[in-house]
């Protein structure tokens, strides 16, 4: 237990900053227009202002109550995101099977203990399943392997 509610202090501040940035961006880049013909900036500017306001509303009271300090789990976060990215960047140039294998191996790093054999079996099984269900079964235009370039 902390002396202040850090969860809401962080959350409120992030919203406040985001809201102000949104308002600033909308005002500076898009035309606000007038009521008769509202410009593309009017609605976002209003939203940004309200966002900042509610950020403040969450932030201020949090200074006056006890709370927790949020602690993120970095390892699973990084591993899962990296797995998704490797899939995204392999699916078009290399095809479904390489993307699947890469995803399975990378996301397996999220766990403390590595069991390579099991991961390999899982990658193989999921590759077969993915090709059967998605490419063959549902006819999604992603080949198992992309042999030719485009």
């Amino acid at each position, binding site marked *: 237990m902390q002396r202040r509610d850090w969860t809401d202090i962080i959350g409120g501040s992030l919203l406040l900053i985001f809201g102000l940035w949104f308002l600033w961006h909308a005002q500076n880049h898009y035309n606000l227009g007038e009521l008769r013909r509202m410009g593309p900036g009017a609605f976002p500017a209003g939203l940004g202002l309200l966002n900042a306001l509610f950020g403040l509303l969450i932030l201020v009271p949090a200074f006056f109550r006890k709370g927790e300090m949020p602690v993120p789990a970095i390892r699973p976060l990084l591993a899962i995101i990296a797995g998704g990215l490797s899939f995204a960047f392999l699916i078009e140039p290399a095809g479904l099977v390489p993307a699947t294998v890469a995803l399975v191996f990378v996301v397996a790093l999220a766990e403390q203990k590595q069991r390579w054999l099991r991961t390999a079996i899982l990658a193989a099984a999921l590759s077969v399943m993915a090709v059967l269900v998605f490419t063959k079964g549902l*006819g999604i*235009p992603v080949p198992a392997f992309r042999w*030719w*370039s*485009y």
Partner: protein
Amino acid sequence: MTISRRALLGTTLGAPFAATLPPLASPALGQSQWPARPVRVIVPWPPGGSTDVLARLVAEQLSQKLGQPFVIENRPGAGGNIGHDQIAKSTPDGYTMGPVTVGGWSINQYLYARLPYDPEKDISPISMHWELPNVLAVPTAHVPATNLQDFITWAKTKQGGVNYGSPGVGTTPHLSGSMFINRLGIEGVHVPFRGAAQTIPALLGGDITFALDNLASYVPIIASGQMRALAVTSAERWPTLPDVPTMAEAGVPDFVVTSWCAMAFPAGVPSAITQRAAAAIKEVSETQAMQERFLRTGARALYGTPEQAAERAARERPMWREVVRISGARLE
């Protein structure tokens, strides 16, 4: 019942058998082997739209005719530009093609501040694919006019001006609507919607006065009498609305604005392949069944040579540049 099930099986099993049919063109050319593997058909619009449905109609026929699957891939976004760019940047080996609409050939270069591809250099037409006109539709309950001239007179005197709907900024309905009120000196406000499904209720509810929109979505509502068609923008009367005059017949000459689409390869595909593809498209599109099927969706199935399509794209560019300028539309 049994007949139709057999017909169904016929299509799913049809493709392998079709491979044994005699080839279309002379086998002497090396490229006459085309297609030797599946062909990707990149549709720059989401599934379900008319561009998608019409491409699927042709792709299915081509698969049967040429014995290789023509696989549709939808790459929607940015007014078709994402898909157009994908076609332009693919390997020019004849295994990637796609339907490119008039926007992609002749309008977007004037509308968008930047285009990722050059419509004159990066894509090359195979053959015309379809065209469909716009129709000037007004809600019967809210607009008294029964012909175009009455409507123009009525609109000019309407307090506060008229409102016209379109499926978005820079679409042919928007540009032709803008051209219409400018040409005739009508005071009007453009109200963009997200498609005819939104525009039609707004017309029926009396929120907007008229739309010069793609004809296809309006045929049933016109037939029901809830809307009145005052003119079509094609050069001749349209087969599914034979009683509706053309713009010229209704007293507004020089107002031929149709949406059209041509199949495209990336630039650099060997000419023999392009010729063969154009011949195949002609062969599947000229059949009675296909012509009727297209007409029912509101479009006319077209075919022809690559040169004809290129000529039309080039011919219409000055007109669209002018219309875009008048409308004041500018996209990023």
